[in-house]
């Protein structure tokens, strides 16, 4: 085994360990802020694995999109909804966790068995190496043109939808009749309205029960 080989192997071991420990931390740590930072670590380690797989472009994309965008977004969300909340204890939670842990371990065993017993078509053609970025561009404009265009629709729609949902409208009204409205379902939770006052809906926010 040459030095380069063993370096690569050691890198793989270190990155895998970082990925797995980080993932466990994400799901197990009680403090959600630590979880979010560990998630960033997992994303970075996964980007490292991509470098090991000769995919510098995807590694860069992983870092910019997952670490730079998704993780930051998650941190923002945590800060926005971070209220000290004492979670009410639920009876049988420990048992539930252990049971689901057993199920997941079974799933893991199954996946590993499939991974190790299937005769994958090894060895494949030699890696394209640094030409990967060009090749990806060619794919995006030839056989993956349709998903590429559709992804643009998806992103546009997700952006607009996220703005519509997260925006805080202070006041809104029915454009046709000009009545005040509450931006809720027309079907109210309690039998309503008609009996109280003929259809004059007050723009009142529904309070938590």
């Amino acid at each position, binding site marked *: 085994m040459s030095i380069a080989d063993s370096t690569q192997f050691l890198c793989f071991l270190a990155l*895998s360990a970082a990925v797995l420990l980080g993932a466990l931390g994400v799901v197990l740590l009680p403090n959600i802020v630590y979880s979010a930072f560990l*998630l960033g670590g997992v994303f970075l380690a996964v980007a490292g694995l991509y470098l090991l797989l000769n995919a510098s472009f995807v590694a860069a994309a992983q870092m910019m*999109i*997952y670490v730079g965008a998704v993780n930051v*977004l998650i941190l*923002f969300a945590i800060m*926005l909804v971070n209220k000290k909340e004492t979670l009410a204890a639920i009876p049988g939670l420990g048992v*539930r966790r252990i049971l689901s842990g057993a199920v997941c371990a079974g799933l*893991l065993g199954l996946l590993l068995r499939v991974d190790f017993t299937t005769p994958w078509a090894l060895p494949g*053609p030699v890696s394209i190496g640094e030409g990967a970025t060009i090749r990806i561009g060619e794919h995006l404009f030839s056989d993956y043109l349709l998903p590429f265009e559709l992804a643009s629709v998806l992103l546009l729609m997700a952006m607009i939808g996220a703005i519509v949902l997260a925006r805080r409208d202070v006041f809104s009204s029915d454009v046709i009749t000009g009545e005040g409205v509450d931006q809720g379902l027309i079907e109210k939770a309690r039998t309503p309205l008609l009996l109280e006052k003929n259809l004059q809906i007050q723009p009142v926010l529904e309070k938590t029960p």
Partner: protein
Amino acid sequence: MSLSSLFALTLPTTVPLQGFLAVAAVLFCTGVWGLINSRNAVRVLMSIELMLNGVNINLMAFSSYLDGQLIRGQVFTIFVITVAAAEAAVGLAILLSLYRNRDTVDMERFNLLRW
């Protein structure tokens, strides 16, 4: 760039394909466990990201070991990353609007609708 070209010299790799697949499987299963057991809705979203990363490692490993020339797996991964980002943005917007209505992110208390 220089780091990846350093590794490009070492092909064929000594790390077997199954090594990457195993990491992916563990990551996926950790995500599933987190999905089932997390009580904080943000943590559920994070678990889903873990699952998607597991899938991506799978795709990248196959792409590098079995499809070195056409690397369709890398393109697939880019699509997954794109969609995951959109999904995370939408998920957090929905979470925010729910938090305004209910003042909590505890999954156990989202019970206006019976499961």
